[in-house]
């Protein structure tokens, strides 16, 4: 488990700790996209009424199906995107120089602040029902896709050199190389990242199915809308049913999809030794025994041949192994040309919007960034306090791990946003209630990344070091200081990088909520973004979003990258 989690949770290779020209260009491009969306959004219909959401329990299965369908559509989109994007980035050095920094910034972007822009610009060009559906899928997509893309890109660039050379000397076409080497090698990473992505997707699905923008009330029938409506109506029975349905769906997916996949993918690990505890799945064993299997395989064979033929043509023999494909392709020229037109237009439009913003509002935004930063730090501190001891316990006690690990995994995939309405109900009337609730939501959404990493880190402490510490009678604080904390350090850093990113993102749903028809908000950049969205104040939305992007990217570069590098050089256990 340990080496696998290590590879999977590893973020981008930290090769550029400072801001570069590429970063500036990328932030500009995002500004352009945002500005274009806002421009389209201004032409959207003024009033929209969504369908009624029924709180009947009987409606739940139908809602669940719709939500799972949305998740699946977004996931397939993410998978396709990740495979293609990662492949191009890994094999085209010229494209890589743009694509990887772009990915790095995109994953720091507050996804939720894009929703109104996406939604409104889509309603301007599409029928409203379809637009809302597509917007929710796009939103979920943006929450699922980045880590999968990174994982796939990393698998491609770390595939063993000798296997790559063997593919070359035996003249594999790109397609054969993909299915013989790259997909098997990347399978474990893809599956683990897919699991993480589904968890992330649930989080945003809850927010993506209901959206109120002034007089425009967008909603989609689904589990998320059901829970929100139930919370708004303070209907605890419906809330309980909704959460129960969610848990059931998560457990079913875990048992019927992810566990079998993991058990199946165990063959794709690179280690040349048999593992003593391979992942198990009752459902996978069942499938293995099914007599229908060869029959289905035979039925699918003609289709398989057709796909083979097409793919062999699409992905022919590579030209050379080390010959970088360095020519400027036609697509590249189109890209440059497009950028040449779009960037000035976007900068002009975006700049005009930003200039409308009075100075006081900029100061407000700066203050809000500071407030959210404090909240993020608080959430991370609390998460560290409990996950480190618990994670170390689980990681070093194999028996505890066997029992607790599956439970923790299921609990972790329950989206914090589903519980949030309940939390708010409980906390709203306390002094500083929303403040507390916001920190709590960030915590709920992000502590799991930390916990998983701590478990993996603790499990990876070499046994001989633990024995040595026992022999030296290292106990209590000295043991933590000499052995456990240094060993955990790289894992803590990787966990915290992911967790802090998630916490910033969560601030958008956490700091401003509409409850029982009334809006509650606290000081914070997330509240700025949501409030600006609610009243259609686009200059402020743009400014706040940009402020958040710049802050998150800056923290990543200035703090996390440095710590990560330190972790990689000094505290590595290899």
């Amino acid at each position: 488990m340990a080496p696998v989690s290590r590879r999977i949770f590893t973020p981008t290779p930290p090769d550029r700790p400072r801001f570069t020209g590429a970063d500036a260009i990328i932030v500009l491009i995002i500004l352009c996209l945002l500005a274009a969306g806002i421009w389209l959004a201004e032409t959207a219909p003024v009033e929209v009424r969504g369908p009624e959401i029924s709180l009947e329990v009987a409606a739940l299965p139908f809602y669940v199906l719709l939500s799972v369908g949305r998740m699946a559509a977004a996931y397939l989109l993410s998978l396709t995107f990740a495979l293609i994007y990662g492949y191009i980035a890994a094999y085209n050095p010229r494209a890589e120089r743009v694509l990887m920094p772009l990915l790095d910034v995109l994953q720091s972007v507050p996804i939720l602040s894009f929703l109104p822009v996406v939604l409104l610009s889509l309603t301007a060009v599409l029928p409203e029902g379809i637009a809302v559906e597509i917007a929710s899928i796009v939103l979920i997509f943006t929450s699922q896709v980045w880590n999968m893309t990174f994982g796939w890109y990393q698998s491609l660039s770390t595939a063993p050199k000798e296997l790559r050379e063997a593919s070359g000397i035996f003249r594999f076409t790109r397609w054969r190389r993909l299915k013989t080497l790259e997909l098997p090698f990347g399978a474990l990473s893809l599956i683990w990242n897919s699991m993480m992505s589904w968890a992330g997707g649930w989080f945003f699905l809850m927010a993506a199915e209901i959206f109120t923008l002034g007089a425009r009330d967008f909603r989609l029938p689904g589990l998320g809308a059901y829970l929100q409506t139930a919370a708004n109506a303070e209907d605890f029975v419906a809330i309980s049913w909704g959460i129960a349905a969610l848990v059931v769906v998560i457990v079913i997916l875990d048992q019927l999809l992810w566990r079998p996949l993991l058990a199946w993918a165990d063959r794709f690990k690179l280690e040349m030794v048999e593992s003593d505890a391979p992942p198990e799945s009752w459902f996978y064993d069942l499938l293995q025994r099914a007599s229908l299997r060869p029959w289905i395989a035979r039925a699918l064979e003609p289709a398989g041949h057709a796909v083979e033929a097409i793919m062999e043509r699409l992905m022919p023999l590579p030209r050379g192994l080390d010959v970088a494909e360095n020519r400027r392709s036609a697509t590249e020229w189109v890209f440059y040309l497009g950028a040449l037109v779009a960037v000035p237009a976007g900068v002009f439009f975006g700049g005009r919007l930003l200039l409308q913003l009075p100075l006081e509002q900029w100061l407000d935004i700066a203050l809000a960034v500071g407030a959210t930063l404090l909240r993020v730090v608080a959430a991370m501190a609390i998460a560290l306090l409990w996950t480190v001891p618990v994670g170390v316990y689980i990681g070093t006690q194999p028996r505890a791990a066997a029992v607790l690990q599956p439970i923790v995994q299921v609990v972790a995939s329950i989206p914090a946003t589903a519980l949030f309405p309940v939390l708010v109900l409980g906390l709203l009337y306390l002094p500083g209630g929303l403040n507390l609730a916001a920190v709590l939501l960030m915590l709920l959404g992000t502590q799991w990344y930390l916990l998983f990493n701590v478990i993996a880190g603790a499990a990876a402490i070499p046994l001989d070091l633990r024995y040595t510490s026992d022999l030296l009678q290292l106990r209590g604080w000295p043991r933590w200081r000499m052995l456990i904390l240094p060993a955990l350090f790289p894992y803590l850093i990787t966990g915290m990088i992911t967790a802090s990113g998630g916490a910033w993102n969560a601030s958008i749903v956490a700091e401003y909520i509409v409850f029982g028809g009334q809006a509650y908000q606290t000081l914070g950049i997330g509240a700025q973004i949501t409030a600006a969205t609610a009243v259609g104040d686009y200059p402020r939305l743009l400014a706040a979003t940009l402020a958040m992007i710049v802050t998150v990217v800056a923290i990543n570069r200035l703090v996390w990258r440095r710590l990560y590098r330190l972790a990689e050089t000094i505290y590595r256990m290899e």
Partner: protein
Amino acid sequence: MTISNGKALVELSGVAQRYGRGEKRFTAIENINLTIREGEFVALLGPSGCGKSTLLRIITGLNLPSEGTVRYRSVPLSGVNPYATIVFQSFALFPWLTVEANVEVAMRARGIPAEQANARAVQLIDMVGLDGFEQAYPRELSGGMRQKVGIARALAVDPELLCLDEPFSALDVLSAETLRGEVLELWTSGQLQIRAVLMVSHNIEEAIFMADRIVVMDKGPGRIIAEVPVTLPHPRDRKSDAFVALTDRVYALLMGQTQPEHVEFGTEPGQAGRTRALPRAAVTELAGLLEHVNSTPVERDDIYQLREDLGLDFNDLQALIEAAELLGFARVETGDFIISPLGETFADASILARKEIFASRLRRLPFFRWMLRMLEASGERALRRDVLLTALERDFPPDEAERQLDIASEWGRYAELFGYDDSQSRFFLEERDGQ
């Protein structure tokens, strides 16, 4: 099959491989002219870092040389050579495919239909003696068996040129020996379509045992220094006088002759001329070698014998001997290692005395003179590691520069010439009394 007068299969002329550009330009191999003829078993022999694997990749078309041409049957090579195949040092088997599928995949990639590929795979697996293991996964096999799969896979594509990239060095002694015999039998029986074999090796006996011709390479930059024909009939007897004499001769070639000091030491990093790379030798092992040699009754120790006694990898032993020569502890003559009076003193000395001897020798080396001067010139008498690394990258490729600094760091810290602060990644001069 002895000396071949067959048609030229592979011809290399003026081949060089350079990496990087500008000041960081590094030459891996240079001025390689080599012909491999039909019916020949050629071994490429040399220390690690001499570019023999690079050369193999150029010959098979996996890498493009930066200079020179590679011809195959008189046709210039562009891209991977379809008539060549490689048996890899690390086997390069796909762990998720069965033995059979690993062999089949090579044939399927060449458009051979599934049934035919399957039949041939079964036949080849049988031929290498893995009958019954068709459905096993590589991780269930021993190293020797895995390499047999590698060989079966290489043979599956009916290659004309079979390349072996240190094929036995990842195996245990017994498996390696068995497999050597089996490969030789495959080759000499003449059943296969293979026209020539090219083997990369750093094992001298292995090369003499198997090859018809040994191409000896040296590093800095990688180049061919000699070609030695081997005309002994198969099967070769390692104990025979002719074999032993040939072994000594190749050892002598590889160990080089002692050159005048200014050539031997090279120039300081950053200055014109070649900077002599520090051999990758650990101080404790160097001391161990000298102690051992000092304890043997003879004056001249046969290097071949030393290797047997100490159970060292040839590469490691060579690095140790090079270090001993560089520091004046010993010299090498016609395959013999001769310890110097200084080396004897070192071997007998106490730890502190050893450190002093070591320090005085290091101060003579341009590499350390340069490092000490750099450290003294900096205001704090300390320098960050990356500063030195950047400077070294003018003379060495980045990996090697890093390695050189690691070696220098180990030697220098042993000799107490300077210290290294790990937490700040910097080298510093120790404060001395009276300074």
